[in-house]
């Protein structure tokens, strides 16, 4: 905990677990997110991605473990400090239109954060207009209601709204979900530019591994609530160590005209967290599973390139020697 790097982390999760009743959704996840960094959480539906980011944002209290923001535990924040955290950590939502209060105009939606935090609107308004231009929206959207703008515009309003308070941490939940291919690149470029200009730290959740590849410094692979592989993006995505990471990467139908080569698909589905498999949770779907995987839950081990993997038989045996 007194590791020198750790103290520099903006967001730090330590053994974070979340249960809904008796059903575990997140199991002992730890990671540090450093200022200016982008960490992406990937995994199938039901892997606990949403629960993880909601707990990290303090929207749900964890069952066990801690979330630290700027070295302060979220559970200890009270009053003014808690409110300051709400200013510093913002989120963009998967369904951007649904995340905008339906009876408000875009203008009200953009000034609402200022009012909540008692920022003088008059002095902040030029900054809001500037932000509106930055995200590529005309001023004519200001008087419109959420149902009168397109999905792409709603997403841009959501991004502008998250940045009005100049947060330090931005949590992006599926920022390109449902977007057409022709605008997907635009949104990714915008997020990368805004990250640079505003010094943002980004925690992202995405199904789209191509978008993850284009944006992330580090990747965390979640399976049934557990971080099965965490490490630098280029290592994890180019040479996965966990068989599940490899299967996720192979599942994306590659655009390769005239060349149909498909890896055999990953069999089965994510098991129910009510009744998780014994041993390694991935063993029923894993091509490499043996007797040990079925009985003994693998401990996390650190590979020589710095990534953490929870697997008895990691794919990169040479790196596992350490």
């Amino acid at each position, binding site marked *: 905990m007194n590791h020198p790097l750790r103290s520099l982390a903006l967001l730090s999760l330590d053994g974070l677990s979340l249960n809904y009743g008796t059903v575990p959704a997140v199991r002992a996840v730890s990671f540090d997110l450093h200022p200016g960094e982008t960490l992406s959480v990937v995994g199938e539906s039901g892997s606990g991605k949403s629960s993880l980011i909601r707990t990290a944002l303090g929207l749900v209290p964890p069952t066990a473990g801690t979330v630290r923001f700027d070295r302060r535990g979220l559970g200890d924040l009270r009053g003014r400090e808690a409110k300051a955290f709400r200013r510093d950590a913002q989120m963009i939502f998967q369904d951007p239109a649904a995340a905008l209060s339906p009876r408000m105009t875009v203008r009200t939606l953009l000034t609402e954060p200022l009012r909540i935090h008692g920022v003088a609107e008059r002095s902040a308004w030029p900054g809001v207009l500037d932000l509106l231009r930055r995200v590529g929206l005309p001023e004519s959207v200001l008087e419109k209601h959420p149902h009168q703008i397109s999905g792409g515009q709603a997403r841009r309003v959501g991004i502008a709204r998250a940045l009005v308070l100049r947060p330090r941490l931005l949590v992006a939940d599926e920022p390109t979900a449902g977007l057409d291919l022709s605008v997907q690149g635009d949104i990714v470029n915008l997020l990368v530019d805004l990250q640079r200009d505003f010094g943002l730290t980004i925690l992202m959740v995405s199904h789209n591994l191509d978008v993850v590849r*284009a944006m992330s410094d580090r990747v965390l692979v979640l399976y049934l609530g557990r971080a099965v592989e965490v490490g630098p993006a280029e290592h994890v995505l180019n040479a996965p160590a966990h068989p599940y990471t490899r*299967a996720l990467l192979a*599942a994306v139908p590659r*655009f390769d*005209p005239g060349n149909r080569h498909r890896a055999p698909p990953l069999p089965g589905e994510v098991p129910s967290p009510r009744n998780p498999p014994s041993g390694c949770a991935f063993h029923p779907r894993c091509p490499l599973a043996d007797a040990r995987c079925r009985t003994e839950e693998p401990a996390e081990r650190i590979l020589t390139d710095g990534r953490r993997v929870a697997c008895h038989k990691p794919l990169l045996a040479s790196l596992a020697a350490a």
Partner: protein
Amino acid sequence: MTASPQEAEPLIAIRNLSVSFATGAGPADVLRNVSLDLGRGRVVGLVGESGSGKSTLASAIPRLLPRNLSRLEGSIAYGGRDLLALPDHELAALRGTRFAMIFQDPMAALNPVFRIGTQLVDLQRAKRPKERRGALLARAAAMLARVGIPDAERRLSNYPHQFSGGMRQRIMIAAALLAEPDLLIADEPTTALDPTIEGQIVALIEELRQDYRGTILLIAHSLGLVSQLCDDVAVLYAGTVVESGPAAAVLGDPRHPYTRALLACEIGAGVARRATLASIPGEVPDATRLPQGCVFAPRCPQAAEPCRAAVPPLRALGGGRSVACTLV
């Protein structure tokens, strides 16, 4: 029709199909002069973004169009008849026997209050009115097993909500195939699924090609999916087919500026972190206010005077390819 003599006659030949809907903002021209052949036994991919009209094109074949339809012109030839001119009852008889559809959300197509077995039996009734229920149930069980549903016989007595999303999509595929249709229309069948499950469905469709010889019309927005599954592809933009032909040719060597721009947006595995990604500036035009001339001209980097003057017709390039661009 206009198919060249050396090619076999297509299963379905769509010619100059135009579809408009009445809206509060005036008539919306959702499809304009669309011509497309769906070859026998081919997997045809329809590629296009939101608002391109790809779903409307797919629903126009079985004539399942919304009620605010204000214009329906052109022809859809199938088995020597024009589907657009067919009386309603004759068309209804074709749906579910000759044409089958699967959708993005299988839950919407399955009745929540009936057992899967009952629904799969009812679907077969149109084709086999006299067969015993037991025999139809056995066929349903065999088909469920074929599409990879474990313990199929027992699962026939389950209700739709007792299956996962991926399993429901398998059931929909089984239901569609039980009808032994000439044409299977699959409207974004994997969009709502996880990539891993999508991979399973893709592998399943590929595998089924071994014994299902009908034509598949696949609507997809993932270019990866289309390049992996389709024999032919048609690219739609704002209600117009801008390019069509064999998938390997169109996707490997795109000729229309829109196809090129769209393919450039695909993020490859080789993308560098924080590299600037490609996108297409501007927006798809509103179907109630389409531009003069080529619909893509306002966003086209190469657009010139003639592009804005007249709508470029879809021209054959040889090799089964067609493109609608004055510059090619």
